[in-house]
């Protein structure tokens, strides 16, 4: 499960940086907004990966499985507050 999540995050980071085919929208999304979204997504994903490793590290020292650490955490969502 954790490995799968890690893979998912890594794939997501890769996707952030790799260029792909253009998309066409009903609305002009604004170049500033697009670049900003890729930055925000990159940060969110990077934080997700860090969090994952943090739980694995905690699990290693506490003797719990990283899976249960993850589900114990009430703050499982990535923090993105003001």
């Amino acid at each position, binding site marked *: 499960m954790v490995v799968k999540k890690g893979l*998912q*995050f890594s*794939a*997501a*980071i890769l*996707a*952030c940086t*790799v*260029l*792909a*085919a*253009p*998309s066409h*929208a*009903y*609305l002009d*999304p*604004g*170049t*500033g*907004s*697009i*670049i*900003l*979204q*890729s*930055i*925000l*997504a*990159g940060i*969110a*994903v990077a934080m*997700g990966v860090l969090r994952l490793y943090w739980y694995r590290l905690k699990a290693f020292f506490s003797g719990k499985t990283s899976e249960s650490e993850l589900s114990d955490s009430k703050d499982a*969502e*990535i923090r*993105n*507050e*003001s």
Partner: protein
Amino acid sequence: MPLAVADYDFVRGSGLVNDLVAEQKLVGETLLEPSILAAHAQGAHYVLEHPRLPFISYPYEWSFSALKAAALLHLDIQQAALKKDVTMTDATAYNIQFIGPQPVFIDSLSFQRYTEGEYWAGHRQFCEQFINPLLLRAVNGIPHNAWYRGELEGISAQDLSKLLPWRSRLSWNVLTNVFMQARLQNNATSTAVIDKAKARKLPRIGYEQILYGLRKWIAGLEPKMDSKTVWQDYASDNSYADEEAQKKRRFVADFTRAVAPKVFLDIGCNSGDYSIAALENGAELAVGFDFDHGALEYGYRRAVSESRNFLPLHLDAANPSPNQGWSQTERKGFQERAKGDAVIGLALIHHLAIAKNLPLNEVIAWLVDMAPQGVLEFVPKNDAMVQRLLQMREDLFADYDQDTFEKYLGSCARIVKSETVSASGRVLYWFDRG
């Protein structure tokens, strides 16, 4: 087959529309036989019918909390949609209407199939139409309404970034969504940068995190208050303890029971006391209008917390929302929309006739035009409120008296009943122009 048909099939197939309609987040729809519109839309694949909404309002008339509720609804719908591989083509605030204090999404054709890696096309629009107007009030303490009415697309990041104080950069969300976005937008003028931006992909998890982060942030935004204003100031005006308020409440209650209005308009609603009296006596929906942003905010919160079918909206009666937008027909003015089954104007007319110098006969005719029946209040010159309005200025209002008021009201409607409600001689008039 038109593109929209494939999206329509996919979105309906996903169950999203049914779920949102069941949760009352999306306006209902019935699929009709396309032949019903054959004369107007030949070859239409689908014809949908939606229930008619009782009243149309625009974001420049909403209170802070109403705009915030609309923003949260939009994000909730996006989050639910993404789970079903559906996304939205835009993020305009005009796609949301209110039924009482409850926001409801009305554009069921905004949904389309999500493609892995696609960007949130509506992000900039969401910032301009929701986030930036909310920040103007939350950070600077300026209500969004006047600016929004002048700029129907909302407030751009470039404009807002010039106004927000430097310390607001300490908020990660303000820093990124306003300052960084403005800078990136200003700098992204070369075609190379634009092409590169167009080619980027947004991973689904990034999309989800952006929505989640914005929702959490917006849910915590509150209007910046003057140190003098507290919601309790408005609450204390609600006490029905004093005799005058009780008499007025009874009069409005009797009137409402007799008329049984579907749409009850309350011009100069304050925080909604008389709208609530009307709702308790058979009115289906009360739409209130007031100039005071604090009163609107309190009224909206009260409608939500007490589950009242009451929507307070911003109105400067001397300068109501005009017809505007494309061809000046896109967004209808106040006058065209403010048609109800009943209207009341209590403690209002002296503000217009005296403080704003408007002709008394025109003010009365303007109110009477809004509904076939209603209640208007006459406040005499010797009343403390009118004396306060006249304190710093010359009294130019020789014909402002009860006889003239009755004459003008009588010339456009029949006076059914009247009652003196205060020692100073305030009088309520029930009129019927039917």
